């Protein structure tokens, strides 16, 4: 990801390594180069076949793809698939759902890891801190299948929460399988799964803050809140801004597996996102050309957004994802 940094390090390393070598044993050097190329071959073959080979398959977005005729035998139809897509209200509903969920995530998910990191950072008792960190990171490694199942067990009709509410004679809550509650539910799932993991980057930034600044501020009479406001926040602002920009660049992606697992329970009106639209049109419906067009549309817009986000990051003096 961080190409810029690594490249710079390379160039430094390259100079002393290459020059004496070239003078002394040029033949050996070339042999090493080929040995390395050989080592690289399986990985390179993978990328060429499964990424670039597959990428070529996007031509069917411009064709009326018929499996029997194959990718190259099918008729070209120009932009017909795209025209149909732009006129399809289901597609726009999926786009709207995607954006809506992404915005909810940015508003409600994004601050949670930050707050949790600040809280963890204030703990001076490292045993407690490490224990809470271990527990909080764990859900990141649990598959979406299990996370969705856990939420069903806890929040479902016959789940833990409703069991207690029922016993206490209170109203039970209708969350699982309720289309109206679906968007808050998926945001809650993302918070449960990834908020702990998300603290890592903020904790790293917090640990970089110069301790002396806190001391100086405290001596000048700043209390904990003012120290947080005037020392901590400015110090971690670059990371926060960067992550926010990167999330905005990736706004067309909102947990494909998570949605696919729950779409049938709440219906497409609530849960259809661009990725599930592609899946149901193409894989389930067999309308490959049309689905590929929707996928390609997402890919191109997504790449442009990442590109734009990176530009903005550079404009703000941040490093961005690439240079």
């Amino acid at each position, binding site marked *: *990801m*961080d*190409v810029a940094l*690594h490249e710079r390090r*390379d160039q430094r*390393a390259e100079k002393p390594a*290459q020059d004496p*070598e070239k003078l002394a044993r040029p033949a050996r050097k070339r*042999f*090493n180069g*080929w040995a*390395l*190329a050989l080592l*690289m*071959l399986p*990985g*390179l073959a*993978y990328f060429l*076949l*499964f*990424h670039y080979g*597959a*990428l070529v*398959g*996007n031509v*069917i977005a411009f064709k009326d793809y018929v499996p029997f005729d194959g*990718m190259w035998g099918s008729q070209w139809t120009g932009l017909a698939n795209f025209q149909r897509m732009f006129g399809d209200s289901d597609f726009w509903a999926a786009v709207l759902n995607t954006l809506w969920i992404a915005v909810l995530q940015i508003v409600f998910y994004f601050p949670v890891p930050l707050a949790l990191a600040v809280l963890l950072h204030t703990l*001076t008792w490292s045993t407690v801190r*490490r*224990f*809470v*960190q*271990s527990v909080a*990171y*764990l859900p990141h490694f*649990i598959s979406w*299948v*299990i996370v*969705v*199942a*856990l939420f069903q*067990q*806890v929040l479902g009709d*016959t789940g*833990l929460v409703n069991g207690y509410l029922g016993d206490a004679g209170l109203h039970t809550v209708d969350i699982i399988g309720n289309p109206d509650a679906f968007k808050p539910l998926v945001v809650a799932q993302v918070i*449960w799964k990834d908020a*702990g993991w998300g603290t890592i*980057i903020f904790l*790293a930034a917090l640990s970089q803050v110069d*301790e002396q600044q*806190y*001391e100086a501020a405290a001596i000048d009479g700043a209390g904990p809140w003012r120290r947080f406001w005037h020392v901590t926040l400015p110090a971690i602002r670059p990371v926060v801004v960067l992550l926010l920009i990167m999330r905005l660049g990736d706004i067309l992606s909102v947990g494909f597996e998570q949605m696919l*697992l729950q779409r049938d329970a709440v219906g497409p009106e609530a849960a259809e996102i661009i990725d599930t639209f*592609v899946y149901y049109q*193409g*894989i389930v419906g067999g309308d*490959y050309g049309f689905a*590929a067009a929707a*996928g390609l549309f997402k*890919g191109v817009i997504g790449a442009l957004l990442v590109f734009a986000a990176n530009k903005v990051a550079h404009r703000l003096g941040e490093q961005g994802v690439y240079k």
Partner: protein
Amino acid sequence: MTATRAALAARATRAPRPAWMEKPRPLTQAAKALALVTVVLLVCVPFLVILSTSLASTDEVVANGGWVLWPQDPTLKAYRDILDGGIVTHALGVSAGVTVIGTLLSLACTIGLAYALSRPGTFGRKPVLLLVLFTFLFPPGMIPSFLLVKGLGLLDTYASLVLPVLINVFNLVVLRGFFQSVPEELYEAARLDGAGEWRVLVSIVLPLSKAALAVVGLFYAVAYWNSWFYASLYLESDHWPLQQVLRTYVVAGSGLTDITTGEGTVTAPQTVQMAVLVIATVPILLVYPFLQKYFTKGVLTGAIKS
């Protein structure tokens, strides 16, 4: 005397409060403690519920309305039922096999590519690096990938769970960064001793990169173990791994086939469903301490920052 005190201080896990910091107020401390306990409970209680329910008897679960927080009379019957041959046992074998073989293949290919891309002399290093990083910006898309796997004749083979996801760009970048941080002098010394690239990699670079290899290997293993979508996309149901079985019988609540025998049309009892959930979670819990060990070494922090 001072030495003992210093040793004691070093052993104590609570760092001394700096002189300039205010004494924490009890109310703040209580609020913090409450927040932390809430976080821990929110993560742990769901796991406790599935574990307890899987250990309870079917009657107790039914009497309690679908779940149990603390089984009165723990029994391993649910586990015996599903591990006694049948769909789940088979799926467990598939998951384990795909995870082990997939992780080894992924690790080998990632090491080769990462090492080659980290050395200055590699033929075509710059273009290959750009080629690889571009895939991060522009993935090929679901439909073309599916048609490619189909076209290669990989449908309904276990290879379809491994080959299309063989190398993860993030893991590659982590490993490459780690290889680059090996001091250049070591390469020099090895080369003067007449070691070729292969020898340098095996005897010097890999032993020095154990921590990074462990993390990347565990990331791959967790990803293979947790994967279900490719199985649902490419495999027939008699080849399914555990997560896809879990998805069908527990998440979607499909009662078409008896989960233990593969025959009949009975919905699996709640205890059995929860036992499958536990079995799918346990391997993650087992490798987690090892992953955790390397968080503290800062491997991941450094990797994620980049």
